């Protein structure tokens, strides 16, 4: 019998794409990113596609937006009962979709805009860590409520994913009805057929979302390290563990994305030796402290976060990735065709080096 994602580790190849408006204006329509990823059709095999949009919920910008897959009614009832205890629900609805000939077996897909409620005691004692609370809620529901899976949990951002080719998934979710300041997309080419929607990408936690192309050889070293810090790698995917690593380094360790890139795609020792002394000392300390968070094997990732995108390749550049610019818009993709297809007069197209992070922050 075929095992579901999470019961077995499934390697996959992929296509990724990202667009961001540096000015921060929510000028990019969802159809743009759908078109971009469609040019890389052959890099997916119809077993997973998805998108993440930032700035797409201006009317609920201060609420956490939970996107949830339910297998059945009882999972939904149990989840809503659980959420009801600790969250104020500002809005809840099914996520609008359209019938699509090539998207089948859809679960119930719901969206909740919520505010966490803290007890008076917690507020008095000033011990509220809101993000930690959200992460714990997500882990609880995904682990303990059978048939429920929260796949998006950030503010003013959302993930849309399904089993299918990415362009079909985009049409299914009616992404042309959303405008954002940045988007990422993923087309999946898994080497097994789990057919589970939760296994599609992007993978997201809080406002971090990751699309990833590659198969990391360091997976179990990374997983067994990060699980010491209260993360549970239930999906056994690279994307999941990379997301947790970034959450750990950024949110818990307080490191910026430039430093995170130097940890997960660390320079080689021989490069470090050639650096100026202070910089060498800094990177040596990073590599030393977070040795088990070095990611090896091929990867190209686009990390979405509140206010920006980061693109990063493994340090040997074993996966393709190109960047292009036109006016205020920056394009990132596995292949140049995905950029030229939507921006024929693109300027400054280049391939970042292995381990060289491309970080774009809006308003900067």
């Amino acid at each position: 019998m075929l095992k579901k994602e999470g019961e077995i580790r499934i390697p996959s190849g992929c296509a990724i794409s990202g667009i961001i408006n540096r000015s921060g204006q929510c000028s990019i329509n969802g159809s743009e990113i759908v078109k971009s990823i469609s040019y890389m059709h052959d890099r997916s095999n119809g077993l997973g596609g998805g998108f993440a949009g930032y700035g797409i919920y201006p009317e609920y910008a201060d609420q956490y937006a939970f996107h949830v897959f339910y297998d059945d009614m009882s999972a939904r009832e149990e989840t809503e009962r659980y959420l009801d205890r600790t969250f104020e629900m500002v809005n809840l609805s099914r996520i609008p979709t359209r019938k699509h000939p090539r998207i089948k077996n859809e679960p119930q897909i719901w969206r909740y805009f919520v505010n966490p409620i803290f007890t008076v005691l917690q507020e008095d004692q000033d011990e509220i860590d809101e993000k930690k609370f959200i992460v714990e809620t997500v882990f609880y529901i995904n682990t303990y409520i059978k048939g429920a899976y929260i796949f998006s949990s950030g503010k003013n951002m959302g993930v849309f994913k399904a089993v299918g080719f990415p362009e079909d998934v985009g049409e299914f979710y009616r992404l042309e009805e959303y405008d954002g300041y940045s988007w990422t997309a993923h087309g999946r080419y898994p080497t097994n057929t789990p057919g589970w929607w939760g296994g599609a990408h992007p993978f997201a936690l809080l406002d971090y979302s990751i699309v990833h192309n590659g198969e990391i050889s360091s997976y179990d070293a990374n997983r067994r390290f990060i699980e010491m810090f209260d993360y549970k790698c239930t999906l056994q995917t690279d994307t999941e563990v990379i997301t947790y690593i970034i959450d750990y380094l950024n949110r818990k360790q307080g490191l910026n994305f430039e430093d995170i890139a130097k940890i997960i795609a660390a320079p080689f020792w021989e490069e470090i030796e050639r650096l100026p002394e202070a910089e060498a000392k800094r990177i040596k300390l990073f590599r030393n402290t977070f040795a088990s968070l070095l990611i090896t094997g091929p990867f190209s990732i686009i990390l979405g976060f509140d206010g920006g995108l980061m693109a990063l390749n493994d340090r040997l550049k074993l996966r393709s990735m190109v960047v292009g610019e036109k006016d205020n818009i920056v394009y990132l993709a596995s292949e140049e065709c995905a950029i030229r297809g939507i921006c024929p007069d693109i300027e400054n197209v280049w391939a970042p080096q292995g381990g060289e992070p491309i970080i774009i922050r809006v308003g900067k």
Partner: protein
Amino acid sequence: MAINFIHPEFEIIREEKRCIKCRACERQCANEVHSYDQEFDCMESDESKCVDCQRCVSLCPTRALKIRKTDNRYRENANWQQQAMEEIFRQADTGGVLLSSMGTPKDYPNYWDKILINASQVTNPPIDPLREPMETKVFLGKKLNKLEFDENGELLSEIPPQIELEMPIMFSAMSYGSISENAHKSLARAATELGTCYNTGEGGLNQDLYKYGANTIVQVASGRFGVHKDYLNAGAAIEIKMGQGAKPGIGGHLPGRKILEKVSRTRMIPVGVDAISPAPHHDIYSIEDLRQLIFSLKEATNYEKPVIVKIAAVHNVAAIASGIARSGADIIAIDGFRGGTGAAPTRIRDNVGIPIELALAAVDQRLRDEKIRNDVSIVIGGSIRSSADVVKAIALGADAVYIGTAALLALGCHLCRTCHTGKCNWGIATQREDLVKRLNPDIGAKRLANLVSAWNHEIMEMMGGMGINSIEALKGNRLMLRGIGMSAKELEIFGISHAGE
């Protein structure tokens, strides 16, 4: 005279046509097996003294010699095998405890041989170490759990005391006294050339070897032989020896005849007096006592050296390791029951302790479950026989390995397992000057460096095959391992899947 019940174990086969009677075998054999019969102009052998060390075989210029196991057998008995019977005869003769050297030769399961390594195909490219950088540098010691920055984003944190190694292989503890000065010199020079460390063992540090301090781990054992302030500060790290895989729960005993002038000076004990290391440290009867010794040593070295605590792999090793990790140790060294020794009671060597593979898997997982894996490094030893064993150990969760027996083999040891007699024909486990000088420390160092750098190349090849280009991404990466012919319980302890899964 009493009847000797035991027939000699070996036969010396001398091809008379080849023998030129040069008498090299006679000169080479400290056991006095060979002799020349003037009257009949021929070489003779007393095979009852032969230990099958292969020295004469290796040095015979005409290859006229070979040693063969005798085919003289007692009556077949599956229960009472020949060795069991002979051990009874021996004890009935002497009334003594049986002694043995080196690791147990018994046929216990070897789990390294039941573990297979992964490689990349299609979805992920293998990496060629001859074309791409391939990193095997490791740091041993406590890792920081949180980095501190000042308001300008400048790092305030410093790397805690650690050992930096170019490759995850060190030479394990063998004391000066149990092995010769030239063996120690070989190890020290090789460690320096390789960018790794050797370990003094419990016999102190010979004055001539202080210059190799940066590549030396100095040991403090229950006898405290040769321990003083300069000694503690001479090395890259200090190791507290609580136990040894070949003889858990047992101390050590270096006979007085091995305590000659130089050994006596190094150990700080009189010439000719037995050096007895007690079974426990008499200031450590519990875990809180260990903490005091760790911090005494750190005080004595200004908190600049990492402290290793070495234990034997015993049944509750995971809980013991957890206690050590919480006691201020920076590195835990675990020695498996197949590990070598210069002398141990046979019954202990062959029956006490557990295989290092299981101990490592249990300790690494326990420290992770308790979220303290970052507080210590794990070094394991006890029969690492090849680079593949090293790769498997690191993928199970070790930071580095100790090799002892493999290093001695590189120096010429043929595992005759009679170190305790002090008549090592290879100049390794002896203090007899004529024998010691047979081991040239420059050649010895070269052979050790050859061995370890060959292993390191092989490690890089295997890492590259897995698509891993730095050793830290291999550490604890159990997904790269599969079991073959293991029970479900064994797989569970190792935390790996069976081949085919």
